[in-house]
């Protein structure tokens, strides 16, 4: 479904991704794990067209989407739930959710809105409140629901647990598991490697802008080097 070949990304003169190749099949949940600054988030941003691709290609459902503008990529069916949640702080919860469906023209948006609020009852409760007034965990729920409102064919999650209390993180991963069970194709970037590997089908391990290991999540979870460096026990 999504195929990346020899991706190179640089910020100014500094190259941060040195030729990364990865694949995500339809219905799969793939995790990108690794240390802070290894290039996981930059890979997601390159897919979404937020940072320019210097070399290599990104294919989505047989189409080349390399360096297309961000809004065209959303219309192609790729949505990202960004790092740090990035809700629209002064717009209401409801307005945030409707922004998620910005590219849609079908008549089922209100049904989806209802579905999201069933899934996240707190959002129904707070629907008229400004999104900036929600707690960090609630904002993460809003960001996830907003991403799903686009009815994407693949949903990218960038560090959904970042800056949240451990109890809230468990809730976020329960939600991701539910979304996975719904059949959504997921590409997840996460520093909490244990949580990510428990959820994902497959994973890629990033180190300094390169993929150094990949395979089924179960295998990575028991690989001595991964255990030593990232799972910490």
């Amino acid at each position, binding site marked *: 479904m999504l195929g990346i070949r020899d991706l190179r990304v640089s910020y100014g003169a500094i190259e941060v991704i040195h030729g990364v190749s990865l694949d995500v099949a339809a219905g799969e949940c793939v995790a990108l794990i690794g240390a802070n600054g290894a290039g996981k988030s930059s890979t997601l941003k390159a897919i*979404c*067209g*937020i940072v320019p691709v210097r070399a290599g290609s990104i294919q989505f459902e047989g189409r080349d989407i390399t360096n297309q*503008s*961000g*809004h065209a990529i*959303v*219309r192609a069916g790729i*949505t*990202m739930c*960004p790092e740090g949640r*990035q*809700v*629209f*702080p*002064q*717009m209401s919860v409801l*307005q945030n959710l*409707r*922004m*998620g469906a*910005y*590219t849609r023209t079908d008549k089922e948006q209100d049904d989806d809105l209802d579905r999201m609020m069933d899934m996240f009852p707190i959002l129904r409760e707070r629907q008229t409140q400004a999104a900036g007034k929600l707690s960090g965990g609630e904002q993460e729920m809003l960001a996830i629901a*907003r*991403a799903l409102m*686009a009815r994407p064919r693949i949903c990218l999650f960038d560090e959904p647990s970042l800056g949240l209390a451990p109890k809230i993180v468990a809730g976020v991963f329960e939600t991701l598991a539910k979304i996975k069970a719904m059949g959504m194709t997921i590409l997840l970037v996460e520093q909490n490697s244990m949580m990510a590997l428990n959820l994902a089908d497959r994973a890629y391990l990033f180190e300094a802008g390169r993929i150094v290991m990949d395979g089924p999540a179960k295998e990575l979870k028991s690989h001595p080097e991964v255990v030593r460096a990232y799972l910490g026990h």
Partner: protein
Amino acid sequence: MLIEILQQTINGLAIGGVYVLIALGLTTVFGILGIAHFAHGSISMFGGYLTYFLMTGYGLPLIAAIPIALAAGVLLGALVEMLAYRPVRHANHINAFIVALGLTMMVEGINLQFFGHEQIVIPTTLSRVFDIKGVTVPELRLYVILSAILLVAAMMIFVEKTKTGQAIRAVAENRDAAILMGVNVTTIPLIVFGISTALGVAAGIMVGALFAIAPGIGEGLVVKGFAVLILGGLGSFPGAILGGTVLGITESIAAGFISSAYKDVIAFAVMIIVLLVRPQGLLGRAP
């Protein structure tokens, strides 16, 4: 005394309406692009001049000249965004600032070249004067106030209730997140400049009908527009509406009770006092 205050409040509402329309355009542009669009006043006056020219040169009635001038405003705004500001969008902020100053001089020059240096007054047939319990309300002022309210309401409904309006807000609040929602951040500034300039043209027509248009009026108006933004709270729509109304009424009451020569002094003194108490503006959020 009370009658006199009411009288000046009515007068202040008319000029306040003009300030609100100018300020709404400035605040929308500032919210989306972070640009202090100084040429806004001069372009607004161009709209006023154009209306006058359509009426006197082509014999169009006011009611026909206004929509043409507003449409010209939309077009002009889009052109300004495309030709003047878009090339410097990714450059240092000072570049857009210099473009704004240069554009102001250019538009002032164009106004002078095409419409001359004589002051002009847009002729209207709205000469009736209503007397409501001792307060005289000229028909023209009433129409100006009503049109301003109508335009502001239309703008609010557009921003709150339409998809494009919501996208404009989203870009202002978080540009990157708006891109992730699929908003085309190249066309949004075009739309914003089009609408803002049309609102400015409406204000220009009001100034031309209420008072007069002459070289330099537009520059004075844009300074007032920014004063309104600061007074109301930068980036706040309700703040711009409240700020413009307060500034208009303050000026009017100062002119009526003290001296019209000092109305600007008093208006700006009030602004300074408000900012001493509330540095974030009347409705601005505390940093």
